[in-house]
């Protein structure tokens, strides 16, 4: 009797149909994810921002006393608005051009505007300096050969100005806009455009009266993304602004990390406006996304291809590729083979000395390996963690609503906080107890996980949604347990998407510069941070070599991504 009672109690609370096992245990698992990821993502930000407000907000007073802080804030705002506006214009125009491509060049032409993403920002900006430095930039020197400009001693362009920081940032960000708008265009039916064409509207009129209004949600979403990236922009202002006294809030924060003892309160105060703006943009995006779902007019993808094609569209995309990718890479290649950056084009003096010097330098080679190792370890943690969080976000997953909301928030937060600000917070959090890991590779792994958890979750969420629930439900109906269904049904179905996510995350981590520069120590360096060190204290030709190594490793990563996930995976970068 007693044994029977125990058994029935066991069934009720644990066993196959037990309440604890079916209802409570999974919730504890989700809660654990919320606690761990919450600690990683929220703790550094809260800790840091607390420093801004203690002592009666004296950090804000110190911020107000910084020389030219008004200019710094103004430049940050100008950079955010102007570069995102430029990116939206260029990206949308490119997407429209891609939709007009003749069939013969359509496949490559649609991928071409994504190729700039293969060149890390730090490498691209370096290439641009070699091209557009006012006196010895190769492009400037060539332009000065033109009859109209032959009288100039320098210029006509000066890359070390706010205007060019905006232009270059805008061009770097335009590929992101292209991804969103091009996808929107592809998914949009062409019936309305065809109707307008039948009524005699020209392609330009169709663009402004039909296509663009229909694409408004995609464009607004893309604008939000690039505005966030523009506001947290660090690489271009750091490399281009320093010699000309141009600063933004993130570069001011970085300069604080170079002075001992580091004034974390001041850094937090500098980051506070960025944080608030980030939250506002993400909230507006969420609202816009909701609207997008309600306002879609033509949602079915039509096989009817009504757009007329134009060869000049291929020319525009070709020019974009030449300017954003080919020219900077050519400049980097030439400087990497020059004895020193001299501003002269003499082929006979070319040398491989700097390649040898970089490859023989253990500090530089170790940094490349550290980049690869820390990225791979971070991915090994990010993929299962992101998969779990993505699974939690599925409507079909039984999960306590506040926990789902918390997971959604944790997957969104890293996207709202610029990497440089997050890096500054992580430097603060991990140089003191309870987790004192500064100076080890672990701090880089934790940084990468914190930065990429949102990305990993969103990408795998897309994969899970595309996979559908039918196979999983069928498995459960056939008596398959949760673990068996996961291992034998869901994971094999998602394998391609997960593989592509892993490869693309590797590329993003290998490009990571802003946060890495904040949290690195003198002995724990990654390729981006040593490249900066060589830039500020070494030989420019070696910088060019490192930039090209970054591009080469990225190309390998992208090729693996495409091999695993097909050409669509390139668009997910």
């Amino acid at each position, binding site marked *: 009797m007693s044994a029977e009672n125990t058994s029935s109690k066991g069934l009720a609370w644990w066993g196959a149909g037990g309440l604890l096992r079916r209802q409570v245990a999974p919730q504890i698992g989700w809660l654990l994810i919320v606690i761990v990821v919450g600690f990683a993502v929220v703790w550094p930000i809260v800790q840091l921002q607390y420093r801004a407000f203690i002592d009666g907000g004296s950090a804000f007073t110190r911020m107000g006393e910084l*020389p030219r802080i008004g200019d710094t804030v103004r430049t940050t705002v100008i950079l955010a608005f102007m570069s995102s506006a430029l990116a939206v214009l260029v990206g949308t125009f490119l997407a429209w051009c891609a939709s007009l491509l003749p069939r013969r060049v359509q496949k490559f032409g649609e991928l071409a505007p994504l190729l700039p993403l293969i060149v890390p920002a730090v490498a691209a900006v370096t290439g641009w300096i070699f091209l557009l430095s006012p006196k010895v930039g190769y492009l400037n020197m060539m332009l000065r050969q033109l009859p109209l400009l032959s009288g100039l001693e320098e210029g006509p362009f000066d890359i070390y100005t706010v205007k060019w920081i905006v232009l270059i940032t805008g061009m770097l960000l335009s590929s992101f806009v292209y991804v969103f708008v091009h996808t929107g265009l592809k998914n949009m039916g062409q019936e309305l455009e065809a109707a307008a064409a039948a009524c005699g509207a020209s392609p330009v009129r169709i663009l402004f009266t039909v296509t663009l209004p229909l694409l408004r949600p995609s464009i607004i979403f893309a604008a939000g993304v690039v505005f966030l990236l523009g506001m947290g922009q660090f690489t271009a202002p750091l490399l281009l602004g320093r010699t000309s006294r141009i600063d933004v809030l993130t570069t001011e924060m970085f300069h604080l990390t170079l002075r001992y003892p580091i004034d974390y309160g001041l850094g937090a105060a500098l980051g506070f406006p960025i944080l608030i703006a980030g939250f506002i943009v993400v909230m507006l995006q969420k609202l816009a996304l909701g609207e997008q779902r309600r306002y879609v007019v033509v949602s079915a993808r039509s096989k009817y291809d009504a757009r007329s094609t134009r060869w000049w569209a291929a020319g525009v995309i070709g020019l974009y590729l030449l300017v954003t990718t080919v020219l900077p890479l050519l400049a980097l290649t030439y400087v990497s083979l020059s*004895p020193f950056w*001299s501003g002269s084009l003499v082929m006979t003096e070319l040398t491989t000395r700097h390649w040898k010097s970089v490859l023989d330098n253990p500090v530089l080679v170790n940094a490349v390996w550290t980049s690869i190792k820390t990225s791979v370890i971070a991915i090994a943690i990010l993929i299962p963690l992101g998969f779990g969080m993505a699974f939690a976000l599925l409507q079909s997953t039984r999960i306590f609503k506040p926990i789902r909301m918390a997971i959604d928030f944790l997957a969104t937060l890293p996207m709202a906080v610029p990497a440089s600000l997050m890096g500054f917070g992580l430097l603060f959090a991990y140089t003191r107890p309870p987790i*004192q890991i500064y100076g080890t590779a672990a701090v880089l792994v934790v940084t990468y996980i914190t930065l990429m958890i949102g990305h990993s979750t969103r990408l795998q969420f897309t994969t899970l949604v595309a996979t559908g629930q039918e196979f999983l439900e069928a498995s459960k109906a056939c008596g398959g347990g949760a673990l068996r269904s996961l291992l034998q049904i869901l994971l094999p179905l998602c394998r391609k998407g997960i593989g592509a996510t892993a490869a693309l995350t590797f590329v993003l981590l290998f490009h990571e510069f802003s946060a890495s520069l904040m949290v690195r120590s003198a*002995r724990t360096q990654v390729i981006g941070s040593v490249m900066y060190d060589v830039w500020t204290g070494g030989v420019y030709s070696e910088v060019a070599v490192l930039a090209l190594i970054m591009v080469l490793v990225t190309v390998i990563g992208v090729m693996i991504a495409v091999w695993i996930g097909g050409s669509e995976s390139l668009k997910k970068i």
Partner: protein
Amino acid sequence: MKQLDTILPGLGRFALATAVLATTLTAAFAPSSVSAQQSWNNVLAAAKKEGKVVLYSATPPSLGNRLVAGFKKAYPDIDIEFTRGPSGEILTKVGQEQSGGVDGADVFISTELEWFRARAKEGKLLKPVGPEAATWPAKYIREGSVITAGLEPLTIVYNTKLIGANPPTSYADMLRPEYKGRLGTSELASTLLIAWYDWLEKTQGKDYLQKLRAQNPKLYNGTTPLAQSLAAGEIAVGAFGNITAFKTLMDQGAPVKYVLPNPGLGFEYAMGGLAWSRRPNAALVLMDYVMSKAGQTAWSGTGEGASPRTDVPGAIPAAAITAWDSSAYPPEVVNKYRAYWSGIFK
């Protein structure tokens, strides 16, 4: 992890204590020269066991690379890891390592002399016990453990392709109208820069910095990036430079020349072994190497600077260099001057 972090500095201190104890005991119970040699042999043996030494240095890459190559040749059993950076930046990293108990630098070379003196007074620097320390001029060992490892004059530099027949020879020449927008100088990358700007005002006139700012100079983070831009031709003249930063480029055929202005200022590189080092014996061996004739020849035998030693062929005589007085720039003066300078140049 935490436990390991606690244990490792402990091991470092134990190794240091052993080395010091060995030195003291041997000195007490044996004839002095024999005991000194014996205790140094103990340090050498312990350094070999440690197997590696980590050097952080603010010296330009070429000089650091020469020291590394020379040390490797002299002590093939001890690996050397070299990290370079501007004085201020690298000092921040050393400070973070000290406060966080992080395994980092063993030996640190920088122009931040006062930082070294403060650490020496706290007992946080290793006392050099190698054979070279015994003969090192007393003037160049401060607080018993801060070594002046090299001296250099500050120079004016120019691009020979861009500056023709009438090159600049003095700081007053920096204000020539033809150099407007073609000039480069350094940010306050270290306390040395603060002393230099302060010295310029004192010797060139109170309004000199305002006039220099009116020339719209480009600001570089120290002399090494300035050297690269000058060689490329981005700027025609550099107001702040030291020979070491330019020598390699000149050797490679870069169109760069330097002049020693009169009056001029010089500076010292201070070297210290860090007491919180995980490899204290290897640190002592590296310091001894830098102070040796071979080390000093690698440092300044190319004519880039002066050596405290008098037997280094090719070096500039140390007496010819008037180094800045670091004691006049304690932290409160530095912070005040930083704000003052930023008001002018930023």
